[in-house]
């Protein structure tokens, strides 16, 4: 295609994206370099807003914790969501009649807004009225009737698991499609040669799924680093209890608009900038690893 034709095809998207996303976002980043009095911009501040993130409370203490939670959210989601997604996709692979029905059902929680999801699960897991603990007690597992969302040791994992529960429909769909792309001649030949189901999966199917897993990983990384709606619905803007479900976006939320600090816009914009750089760096690193792996596969 000629360059000019190509640009013509690109122009509408570029204009829309440039005006409504790129421009405001760049402006937001630029805010980080100024001093602020409420919403009115003052003089150039250099990097002082960024150094505040390292030197000043609450960022000094809360940012590392929040970031750690984002990373745990990512790792946890990756492990659980990929395991479930891959197993379910494998199990569904040959169930032609029920596959689509089940795939659709698994994706249903995605349709419900995170606020409602948070509300419903809080209700279900409540230590006072929640049916989950009532059930556990009834079947003699009282030692597992924990205050789920009330204990810092379990609260973060509840958030992660509910998030997986909400999103697992996608990996199921994606991996299902990827499994469909694995040439059957290959797996069947291996089976004829006496390889077990497990061996076929490890040696043939799994390596072919790596690009799909890579895609899911990169998207999950971005999603995990920006996590906001579900943690907010569960633990409010402060990451209850005791900051155990705090995330970077929550820290932004409460320092940008909920604090009495008159310079809030400067510091919170610096926070947004740092968050973007982390996501950008992480996604690029992940892509690099994937690319190297693909090259190794190809050669």
């Amino acid at each position, binding site marked *: 295609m000629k360059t000019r034709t190509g640009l013509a095809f690109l122009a509408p998207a570029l204009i829309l994206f440039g005006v409504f996303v790129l421009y405001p*976002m760049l402006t937001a980043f630029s805010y980080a370099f100024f001093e602020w009095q409420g919403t009115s911009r003052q003089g150039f501040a250099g990097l002082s807003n960024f150094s505040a993130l390292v030197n000043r409370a609450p960022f000094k203490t809360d940012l590392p914790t929040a970031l750690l939670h984002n990373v745990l959210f990512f790792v946890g989601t990756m492990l659980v969501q990929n395991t479930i997604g891959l197993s379910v996709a494998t199990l569904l692979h040959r169930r032609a009649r029920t596959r689509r029905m089940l795939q659709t059902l698994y994706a249903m929680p995605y*349709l419900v807004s995170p606020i409602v999801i948070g509300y419903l699960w809080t209700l279900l897991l409540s230590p006072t009225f929640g049916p989950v603990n009532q059930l556990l007690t009834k079947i003699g597992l009282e030692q597992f009737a924990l205050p789920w969302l009330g204990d810092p040791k379990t609260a973060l994992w509840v958030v992660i698991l509910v998030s997986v529960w909400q999103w697992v429909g996608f990996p199921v769909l994606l991996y299902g499609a990827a499994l469909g792309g694995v040439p059957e001649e290959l797996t069947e030949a291996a089976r004829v040669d006496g390889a077990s189901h497990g061996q076929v999966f490890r040696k043939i199917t799994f390596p072919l799924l790596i690009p799909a897993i890579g895609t899911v990983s990169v998207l999950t990384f971005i999603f995990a680093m920006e996590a906001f709606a579900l943690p907010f619905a569960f633990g409010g803007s402060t990451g209850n209890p005791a900051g155990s479900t705090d995330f970077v976006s929550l820290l932004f939320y409460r320092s940008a608009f909920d604090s009495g600090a008159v310079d809030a816009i400067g510091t919170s914009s610096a926070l947004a900038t740092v968050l973007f750089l982390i996501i950008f760096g992480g996604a690029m690193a992940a892509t690099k690893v994937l690319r190297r792996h693909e090259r190794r596969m190809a050669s």
Partner: protein
Amino acid sequence: MTTTLTAADAAPTGLETSGASGASGRRPRRRRGSSASDPVGGVGASILLWGYAVLALAPLVIMVLNSFRTNADFITNPLGLPTSPTVAAYKEAWTVGSFGTYFVNSLAVTAGAVAISTAVSTMAAYGLARSRARIFRWIESLFLSGLMLPIHLAILPVFFLFDGFGLIDSRLGLALMYAAAGVPFSIFVLTTFFRQLPEELEEAAVLDGASPWQTFWRIMVPMVRPALATVAVFRFVPIWNDFLYPLVLLRSESKYTLPVGLTNFFGENATNYSALFAGLVITTIPLIVLFLFATKQIVAGLTAGMSK
């Protein structure tokens, strides 16, 4: 820009579309007898799969059931069954909460945004997939970096921009905002699809004298239909559920979308749980309907890909 994330590397490679019709996807199912085509895991796995389906559906079921109960009933037993079902809550939500108006607004804004965003993204994705000049790799990286922009953190500049354009309290403005926010993701998915289509198709069209636009519209777009459905649904849901942008960018109540109406309704009826659930059901039903239709499209496309 070799280090930048590009759709080619990290794209849903599984979403292959051979362009074959859904019908051809049914062929493999007829093969019987080979142990390899038996369902993995047998009956135990079936129980597990259906058990999980129940868990996935639970919140929707709870929502629907509670919307048919009276409020007093709900407060005494939050997770009970509707012993004497009533639709009073729906009447209240629809009339008192003026959900009718919000519903139309939501539909217009969401459908408009998804249509605009999908249209411009399809064109852009095609342009990116079929151009070789270096600048296109730059532009592609720019779009993809948009995937990582936490745009909800830029609410203040967005507001100033809209204020400058005179787009405050405009449903069109809101739709444009959503459309723009959806461009990176849509391009991310669609570029991959276009890259997987063989170029011979277009070469043939060009030999027949078709213009680039004709080639795109008549030949390429029909072939990525499942991808379009995927993109549209994935974008539709978050826009439909969002309440931050309408709250900040709209002023007149007559222009409010459902989630904003819902949050106001929540505030006024904080203790009227059954009406809240009715409101939620009204908000969620369109998504379910859309989803049921669209998965047919998506899965049909995927199945077609699998049957190769």
